[in-house]
């Protein structure tokens, strides 16, 4: 028999950071989380899974569109008609979801209680599912400790939304130790909350399947669900199945060996084609990171717009469902700093930059940056750290960019036209 374990669907949440440009495949990006969920349903049907367990975060908590719930219900209906048992718990994101309250789910779909941990035994399948939903967003108690004992003779599956003892980039909700889980005696711990796939423990299995669809440039690589095969109370295989429809990738270009701007483009093209091949025909959302000590440092930093343009046109030629450049990040370094700048006029630039972006940077800068930061919406501002309180790191990066821009302009006589 088979069961499918998924988590963190975040249905209908937007894919972030994808700036629209002319050749961008905007239509293909729409409804990505829904299509990934449809893929999950198809997986259950194709594999004739007996059970689908979802370990929380079906919806974003502040997402109030009932359409999402109706879509979810319609998909679950298909599963119920095919005789697939569905059990799920609420996570931090959908603990208080109003959508869930308004949508009537098929009777065969079981949402486990938040008040206490409960066990549902499915004699027909020989499976006992234990779990407990989040009653509120920030659950900080160890829920695992409250889970019931295993049911003898059945395959015991524990559903839990947790960050375990903490995972980078994730709030530490429902904290618990792996030993607690292992000692509980269940055969399989179906975890949710952490978006990065991870098999934390084998025998018994403690598994984060990761989220179903990457939603920004930090959620890279394959995304999907775990397909668990079992005989009686014994698990025989746990496989990961990619179900995402948009694949996020980072195209790393080391410009150290590049002699010309075109060399950088060439290297990016090579990496991009590799990423596209790995995406196996999916739409590719990619971030290009150019690094390395290179004589092209200033040229690359100052020529971001041109490079971005070139990369966009590269993405146009990528096969499969196409590709979308999310962002170009240039963090190259010059090969050799001028050892003795002396009175070189350009050395003055560094000094001026130091003055401008130094300790009193925020005040000094506000003179030049006016009120843009007040006009930008908070979600935009969050992406432009230079317009927030200037940290030394941000100031340093800004200084490098400005220095490169000026050096390049003054050196080549470009007036930007």
């Amino acid at each position: 028999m088979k069961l499918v374990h998924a988590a963190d669907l975040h249905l209908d949440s937007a894919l972030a950071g994808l700036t629209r440009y002319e050749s961008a495949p905007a239509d293909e990006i729409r409804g990505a989380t829904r299509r990934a969920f449809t893929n999950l349903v198809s997986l259950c049907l194709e594999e004739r899974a007996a059970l689908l367990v979802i370990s929380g975060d079906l919806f974003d908590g502040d997402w109030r569109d009932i359409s999402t719930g109706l879509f979810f219900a319609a998909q679950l209906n298909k599963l119920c008609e095919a005789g697939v048992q569905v059990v799920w718990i609420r996570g931090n994101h959908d603990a208080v979801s109003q959508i869930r309250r308004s949508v009537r789910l098929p009777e065969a779909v079981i949402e486990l209680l938040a008040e206490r941990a409960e066990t549902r035994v499915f004699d027909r399948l020989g499976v006992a599912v234990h779990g407990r939903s989040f009653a509120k967003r920030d659950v900080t108690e160890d829920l695992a400790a409250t889970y019931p004992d295993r049911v003898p003779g059945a395959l015991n599956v524990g559903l839990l939304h947790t960050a375990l003892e903490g995972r980078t980039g994730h709030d530490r909700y429902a904290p618990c130790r792996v030993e607690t889980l292992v000692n509980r005696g269940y055969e399989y711990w179906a975890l949710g909350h952490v978006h990065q796939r991870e098999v934390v423990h084998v025998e018994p299995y403690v598994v984060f399947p990761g989220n179903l669809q990457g939603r920004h440039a930090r959620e890279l690589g394959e995304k999907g669900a775990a397909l668990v095969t079992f005989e009686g109370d014994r698990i025989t295989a746990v496989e990961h199945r990619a179900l995402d429809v948009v694949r996020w990738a980072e195209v790393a270009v080391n410009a150290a060996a590049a002699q010309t701007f075109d060399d950088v483009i060439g290297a990016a093209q090579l990496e991009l084609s590799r990423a596209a091949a790995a995406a196996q025909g999916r739409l590719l959302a990619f971030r290009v990171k150019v690094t390395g000590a290179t004589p092209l440092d200033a040229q690359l930093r100052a020529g971001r717009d041109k490079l971005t343009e070139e990369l966009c046109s590269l993405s146009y030629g990528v096969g499969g469902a196409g590709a979308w450049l999310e962002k170009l990040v240039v963090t190259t370094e010059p090969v050799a700093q001028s050892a003795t700048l002396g009175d070189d006029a350009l050395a003055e630039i560094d000094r001026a930059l130091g003055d401008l972006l130094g300790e009193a940077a925020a005040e000094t800068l506000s003179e030049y940056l006016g009120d843009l930061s007040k006009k930008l919406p908070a979600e935009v501002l969050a992406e432009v750290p230079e317009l927030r309180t200037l940290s030394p790191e941000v100031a340093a990066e800004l200084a490098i960019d400005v220095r490169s821009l000026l050096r390049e302009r003054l050196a080549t006589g470009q007036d930007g036209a």
Partner: protein
Amino acid sequence: MRFRRLSLDAYGPFTATTLDMAGAVGNGLHLIYGPNEAGKSSALRAIRDLLFGMPQQTQDAHLHAAPALRLSALIERDGEELAFARRKKRKDSLVNLDDQPIDEAKLARFLNGLDAATFDRLFGLDHARLQLGGEEMLAGRGDVGEALFDAGASGRSVHRVKLALLAEAEELYKDRGKTPELNRLLAVYAEQKKRAKDSVHSPEKYDEQQEGVREKRREAEARRGELSRLRAEKEHAVRIRNVLSSVIERDRKSAQRAALGDVPNLRRDVSEQRERLTLLLQEAERDVQRLSQKVAEEQGKLGRLPEPSPLLGMEEGAVRAVERKIGAAQNSLIDLPKRQAEARTLRDAIQAKLPRVGLGTDIEGVLGRSLPVAEQARLAALGREYQGLELKVENAERELPDARAKVEALMNIISLGQAARRIEQSALPPPELVERFDGELAQAEERVEAQRVRLAAGETDRAALSHQLELLRGREGVPSAALLAEARVQRDLRLREAQELAADPKRKALELCLPLAALAQSSAYADTLGDRLRSEAQRVAEVEAVEQQLAKLERERAQMLADREAAESQLREVGVRWENAARGLGSSELLPSEARRVLQDEREGWKEVARQQQELARAQAALGAAELRATEAGRRLGVWREEWQVAVAPLGLAANARPEQALRLLEALADLSSQREQLGLIERRIIGIERDITAFAAEVRLLTESFAPELSALPAPEAASRLLELHRRASELARQRGSIDGELGRARRELGEADARRNQHAQALAELCREAGAVDAASLLELEQKVERARALECEVEELGARLAEVCEGDDVDALVEEARRSDKGAVAARLAELDDLIALREDETREAEREVTRLELGLRTYEGRDGADAAQELSATVARLAELSSAWVRRRVAGAVLERVVEQYRDKHQGPVLSRASELFRRLTLGRFSALRVGLEETRLECVEAIDGKGLEVEQLSTGTRMQLFLALKLASLEQYVKTAPPLPLVLDDVLVEWDDERSRVALSVLAEFSERLQILLFTHHGRDVTAAEALGDGRIFTHHLVPRAALPSNAGGG
């Protein structure tokens, strides 16, 4: 750092070309001269490529392939030296002189760690950049800070870069703008945000809508219930209404049946049987009546027919024979007199023709003269032959005189033609001979003419050269080696004479005077000649050349004269030969061309004579043939006459009878014979007709005598005709009687049968009536009708009962019947009408409610879309773009701000020292026209102080050249500042003085030489003037190098 040696080992057009700078004391100003096409640009690129590596795409790999390119140098800084080479490679391009890779950092240290761009910016200056620097100062309106920065940094316009950054930032965002990209996008963001909010379907609204749907569904359900109730009531009322009429009808029918009382149980088919038997009986009676009438009619017909005739006793064969022959007998009677008349006419015609033939009046005797057919044919053939023979004799007689006349005429023409010829045919020379002489004479004449022309040309040249020689010799003539030798011989002679005299002790000194004088004179003459030979060598050489040419011409002239003589002699010889040959033509005076025409005429004449002779031969042959034909024709005619006489004798014709006459006689005999034959035929026919008429009459008489004696007296054809008519009538009557007999028999038989049927049917009908208890058929019919009526009523009652049961659909029929009996029909109809209205109303209401439910449900379906998520996705893209643009804007704004500060700081820091040094340099470079530089208006604008009146000119007021000088002054002053804090690097200048006048160039070179105290200067120039000026300066700090491309020289000719 400075170069001690720079080698272009294999680069651009250069091969192993070295600029040796080791000889320079100090840094030196190295003037590198390369005229156009000498590869100056390549050499300039070589410096950059040597220090920083060769680019991927190089334009200097034409003479040497890219992998073979190599540059090398020896550089030195503070006593430390580095010898290295540069190859064209992606990796490890920096190598030592043994081509082993060395670390770039080693070289970088010598270069102060500068990259190519910075080196270029700080230590490279060409004419274009110098000019641009001047123009940028103009663009920046002489802003001191910007000018100093530009000169110090690059010559690029800091002013322009600043403006560009400002413009770009403003294109992205303006505080109160609408069109810049960020401002526009912020508006888009607001719109999308609103749309995203509006697109979200809230759960509350969904719940509310769902509740609405439920409410409407309930309402629709209530409407449907009410409708069902009304429809049921209507159905019941309809049933009562339907039952009511059936109940009434059934009651009425039952009463009618009761009134009929009991009826017998008749056989089911009694009516059918009765009707059938009645019909059969009526039919049989009609047949009996009809057949009785028929029998009577036939018997009447038979009684009216006459008795049978005795003619019926005639044999059928005899009747048919008479019928067959009667037509022929009638025709014979008509034909006979016609034939007899024909025979008479023919006999008369024969008798009339006989006397015209002239062979007697007895036809048989005349016809006995006829010839057999073969004889007739022969006679005809002889007749035809005679015509041919007669024609031939006539033709022969006509032909002979013409042929004889023609022969005579031709003989005359031929003798006249022969008499007209000048030359005997056998004496005519062959035409090739004349052609050959003609050609030879023409060639010989041409040769003579050609020699004449050449001689004339040679004469002209000779005259010209003689004139030239005369001019060259002049009045004094020209000394020659021969004259000199002669003079020397004379001198030596005089010397010996003098020596001899001097050696003779007897001679007095006085005697020596004359010989000595002569010696002196001849010595002087020989010396003069010798001197002249040297000093006038050119003229002597020319005279000699002309003389040689003249001698050559003379030799050629002698040759040409000989050639002319030979040509003339050949011409004469050909003439003599021709004369000999032409004598045969009767006139040796004729030229070959004239002779050709005479010969042509003669040949044509002889050809004509020959043609006429051939014609004569043909005419004589024709005359012979004609004479032969005449003789033959005469002979044949004699033979014919003999044959003819024999042939016509039997006809009694004379031998001289004409063939036409014999033939006409033969024709007349044939005609008579034919008519006689025709007459015989007609006479035989008349006899046959008469025999047939007699036989037919006998046959008819035999029949009439046996069966119709009254016809025996009539002529045979008429009697036969009447007999046949009588026989036909008797036969017709006999046939009629037979037919009536047959009809009568058949009618009697059928009558018997009809009568039997009538009796059988009457009996059966009587039996049927008896069975039903009726007295006869009519009372049986009445009984049948009563029984049928009773049965019909019973059926109707039964059917009505069934219909009632059906209408009740299982309900209690009796109860419904009772209810119906109690109901009023009008009341029921009124209620039904009322129910119809109510139902229609309720139906509309229900439909409306259901439509509303559907509409609301469809409304719920809109919640299933994805608009909210799509709008959020769109918003996310805009947020990303806003962030991107904001970031770009921040960078441009900060860059602009930094630049402003930099320029300000740069001015503050460098204004004093740089400006005062630049002031000094500018004064010198402008040859003292300007005395100084100062800061003018608002303490930001640069002013140039004119020496003459101390007036300050702004940058805009300067000429282009002066602005370039100003920029150079600022650049050099800035560099001076630079080398104060950092080790110097070589300054590479390219054609910077190209537009400067000589004096300014000289001063500039002097300034640069002075400047080379601080750093090495490589000044590339394509101007020879600069080299001359540098040499003229005689400054020990200036070194000149000449660029020589390729391997034209074994090594470069560099050197100061």
